[in-house]
């Protein structure tokens, strides 16, 4: 008898597979294709959600499917960890599916067909669901590659554009480098276990050297896929090039699947007992640098989707700070604090899936309405798209880590974990933990700046272009797609005490410690990690307090019977204000550009053209370009060095026939020498 949660999960996968197989067959009827693919995705998401919810409460279930290599059938299983990530996948796949019904209509109108999207979007979902369920390294890698390749075709959906093709190539390159490293990590485990199945790997004895090798390979491989600084350079290009529903999934879930892979490999397969102190320190340092770099880069973007993509780098950083704290404490023998850190990381994982998915959907709605990704040409959309504005605002408040929404809960838990730090013998760690906490605080505050800018420039003020002035609200499907995560953001923000016991089975499985009686929330009102003296946060009461206060003020201080007068904007006596006088996205973040100029290294191009006389100025050109620091300072030099070496080697090819004979002769000689020895 197959377990019900696992059955639901397999149903979710089958639905995805069916959607992608069905799509090419009905390609001649775009409307039907659009509707069926999107709704099947939503169904798959709902099934994944149900599987996750049931799976978190039930024990591990295993199934072996007779597909795959003859001697290696496909092993699937659903434990607490996979259930949690199934839930994360489902919780975003459902709204994105619904959203796609409306979103794809415009793409059909523009491109004539959605063949590529109809095939690869469900396949992409299938890949992610498969990775999460895999129970052997082979299955894991197969689904991993399905996920990577399908998302490549989603990134290059608008392949007419050269920048998109370039972004796609960079993405493919780095995805495969990541795949290679992950394969390396599994090879190390295979060498110890002698079998591809996760059960064998879990039980295998690893030497410290092998464990370290596996950790490093996994950290770099999964880190590359998750977009950890400095391995993130593919991410902003790829996420902004993909259609919005695909970038919502890529940013919202695919990065999380990489986090899942890391947790699976390091916490589950290698195991906590192998941890060395510097593993946690490395993850913590990577998380802190990602959080800061990501948000600093996001602040300087004026391309809406690039901004969101860089903000994903920041949020992956926050997740890694939680995870790094958990690893540090697990290695130093404080399992209880490790549990808290793990919960903080997982909570932020699902939070980020929700609000980033919502923001990308909102960005898609805005692009749909204005036809542009450039924030500098938007403005005033709150009047034209009131419903979208509300959802994007909720997402902006959530992602800025402000109460009463969900982002605050996970940041609060991360801070609590950092503050629980006991006496650590290691001075480096004792300095690194407060440093990460301060970086988290700074990143959170900068995120608020970034999202005030996003909302203020895009939705408020006056329209900066005719397209923005004539924008129209999106249809009901797209609104519904954004409404679902908005609701979850509020629920997870107000009722963390109902959700944390649910996800607690994950750290229970990995750390074998539970927050037990003293730590369990006393009741649904109070969130009290450790104990009530230590710290507590009662989100429902806070929300209640806010409402009471607001009602009181409204009742006492709101002037009754007095009409509010509307008048023209005060213009300092200037005859006519125009939208060009507003602050722009660039000017909004100019102070930060100046303060952090050391991190941005902006390239300024200035030039003045004079007329006939040096006092007559014809034109003044001023352009500032802020590229990705790591791309310019790390990747381009590597590329250049590779090019130089390749050029040198190329010279060797230009010799005549005799040189090649000499090469062959010396190769044979070397081989013979090697064989003889």
């Amino acid at each position, binding site marked *: 008898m197959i377990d019900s949660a696992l059955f639901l999960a397999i149903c979710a996968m089958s639905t995805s597979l069916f959607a992608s197989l069905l799509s090419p067959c009905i390609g001649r009827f775009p409307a039907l294709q659009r509707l069926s693919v999107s709704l099947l995705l939503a169904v798959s998401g709902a099934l994944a959600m149900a599987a996750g919810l049931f799976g978190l409460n039930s024990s591990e279930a295993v199934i072996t499917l007779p597909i795959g290599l003859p001697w290696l059938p496909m092993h699937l299983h659903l434990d607490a960890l996979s259930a949690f990530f199934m839930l994360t996948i489902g919780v975003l796949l459902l709204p994105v599916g619904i959203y796609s019904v409306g979103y794809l209509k415009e793409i059909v109108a523009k491109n004539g067909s959605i063949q590529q999207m109809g095939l690869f979007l469900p396949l992409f979902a299938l890949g992610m669901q498969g990775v999460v369920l895999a129970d052997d390294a082979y299955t894991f890698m197969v689904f991993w590659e399905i996920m990577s390749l399908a998302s490549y075709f989603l990134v290059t959906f608008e392949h007419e554009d050269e920048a998109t093709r370039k972004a796609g190539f960079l993405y493919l390159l780095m995805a495969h480098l990541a795949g290679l490293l992950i394969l390396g990590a599994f090879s190390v485990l295979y060498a110890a276990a002698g079998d591809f199945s996760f059960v064998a790997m879990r039980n295998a004895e690893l030497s410290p050297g092998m464990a370290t090798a596996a950790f490093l390979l996994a950290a770099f491989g999964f880190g590359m896929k998750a977009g950890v600084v400095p391995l993130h350079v593919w991410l902003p290009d790829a996420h902004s090039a993909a259609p919005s529903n695909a970038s919502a999934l890529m940013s919202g879930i695919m990065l999380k699947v990489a986090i899942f892979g890391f947790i699976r490999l390091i916490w589950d397969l290698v195991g906590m007992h192998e941890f060395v102190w510097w593993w946690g320190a490395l993850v913590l340092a990577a998380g802190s640098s990602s959080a800061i770099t990501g948000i600093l880069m996001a602040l300087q973007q004026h391309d809406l989707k690039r901004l969101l993509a860089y903000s994903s780098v920041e949020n992956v950083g926050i997740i890694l700070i939680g995870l790094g704290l958990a690893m540090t404490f697990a290695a130093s023998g404080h399992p209880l604090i490790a549990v808290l850190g793990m919960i903080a990381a997982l909570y932020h994982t699902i939070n980020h899936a929700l609000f980033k998915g919502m923001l990308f959907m909102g960005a898609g709605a805005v692009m749909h309405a204005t036809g542009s990704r450039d924030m500098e040409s938007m403005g005033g959309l709150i009047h034209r798209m009131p419903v979208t504005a509300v959802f994007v605002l909720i997402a902006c408040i959530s992602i800025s880590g402000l109460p009463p929404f969900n982002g605050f809960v996970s940041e609060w838990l991360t801070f609590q974990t950092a503050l629980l730090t006991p006496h*650590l013998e290691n001075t480096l760690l004792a300095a690194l933990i407060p440093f990460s906490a301060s970086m988290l*605080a700074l990143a959170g505050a900068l995120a608020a700046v970034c999202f005030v800018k996003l909302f203020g420039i895009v939705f408020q003020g006056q329209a900066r272009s005719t397209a923005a002035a004539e924008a129209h609200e999106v249809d009901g499907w797209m609104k519904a797609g954004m409404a679902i995560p908005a609701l979850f953001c509020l629920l997870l923000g107000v009722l963390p005490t109902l959700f944390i016991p649910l996800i607690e089975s994950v750290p229970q499985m990995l750390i074998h410690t539970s927050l037990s009686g003293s730590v369990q929330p006393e009741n649904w009102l109070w969130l009290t990690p450790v104990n*009530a003296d230590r710290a507590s946060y009662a989100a429902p009461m806070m929300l209640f*307090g806010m409402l009471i206060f607001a009602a009181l003020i409204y009742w006492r201080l709101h002037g009754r019977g007095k009409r509010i007068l509307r008048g023209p904007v005060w213009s300092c006596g200037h005859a006519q204000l125009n939208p060009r006088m507003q*602050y722009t996205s660039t000017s909004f*973040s100019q102070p930060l550009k100046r303060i952090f100029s050391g991190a941005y290294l902006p390239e300024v191009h200035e030039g003045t053209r004079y007329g006939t006389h040096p006092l007559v100025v014809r034109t003044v050109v001023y352009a500032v370009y802020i590229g990705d620091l790591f791309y310019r300072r790390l990747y381009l030099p590597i590329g250049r060095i590779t090019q130089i070496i390749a050029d040198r080697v190329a010279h060797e090819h230009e010799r005549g026939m005799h040189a090649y004979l000499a090469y062959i002769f010396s190769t044979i000689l070397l081989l013979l020498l090697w064989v003889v020895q």
Partner: protein
Amino acid sequence: MSISITLWVLNLVQAALMVLAAPLLAGIIQKCKARLQNRRGAPILQPYRNLLKLFRKETLLAENASWIFRTTPYVLFTTTALAASVVPVFLVDLPSALIADVIAMAALLALARFWLALAGMDIGTAFGGMGASREMTFSALAEPAMLMSMFVMSLGAHSTNLSTMVEHALHLEHLLPSVAFALAALLMVAIAENGRIPIDNPSTHLELTMIHEAMILEYSGRHLALIEWASQIKLLLFATLIISLFVPWGIAESAEVWPVLTALVFWFGKVVLLAVALAVLETGLVKVRLFQVPEYLSTAFVLAFLGMLVHYILEVGA
């Protein structure tokens, strides 16, 4: 978690006190400043009269103001008042401190600022955007410094609950180096967050250097009154926070009549002292250039970070 009715009532009294006494603090500061500048100055109760006047006046909105602009004064006042009601004023044991700890309090203030900045961007005037940009930029540097200095205190107290933190501070036997760092950082942040000299000048309008006032230029009538009142509450909140965390002597540990009354007197005296100090500071100093503010705030941040480092390395094991 059994909390007596008396404590809740005292808690409400405290919250009401914070809200109602806030304009008085503004009046005292104004009076002191006037005296220091050889002026007679407006009466101490003038801020109340100003608020009353604004509440009576009619409210004018710009043509393209959205609902965000209209709700901002209410959100601002609500969140600030809620934040003020979790800080121990005259009684250590505060039931509402359980609802929101110090991180949540800082987040409430951040939420208020978030809305205010959005309101600044709402009309689409250059001033509003400028104010929003500067306010958010500087608060992005000030907020981590504030959180860090709070963390130093909460690390010592093993709690982020403000009641527990105050209790811990009350029983500190000697001044710890980390506490000194935290105090210095918090004082600097308090000046910046409340837009006082040398960071921002609360009494100027229409200067290109202004920060806070630029965002609220378009407000009038009761909306303006709520915003002004909220910023007065915020000032009192910071003053009380500094007093309760760093010089809590005299604060009542039990909910009895006599200790509570003496604690009230102590609190009032300390707030007045802080007000005088602020007035002296504002009279003696000039506003710094805008781009020197980040240096000021990074100093605060570094001080708080040093405090945390000192705590982790020197004090945790000891």
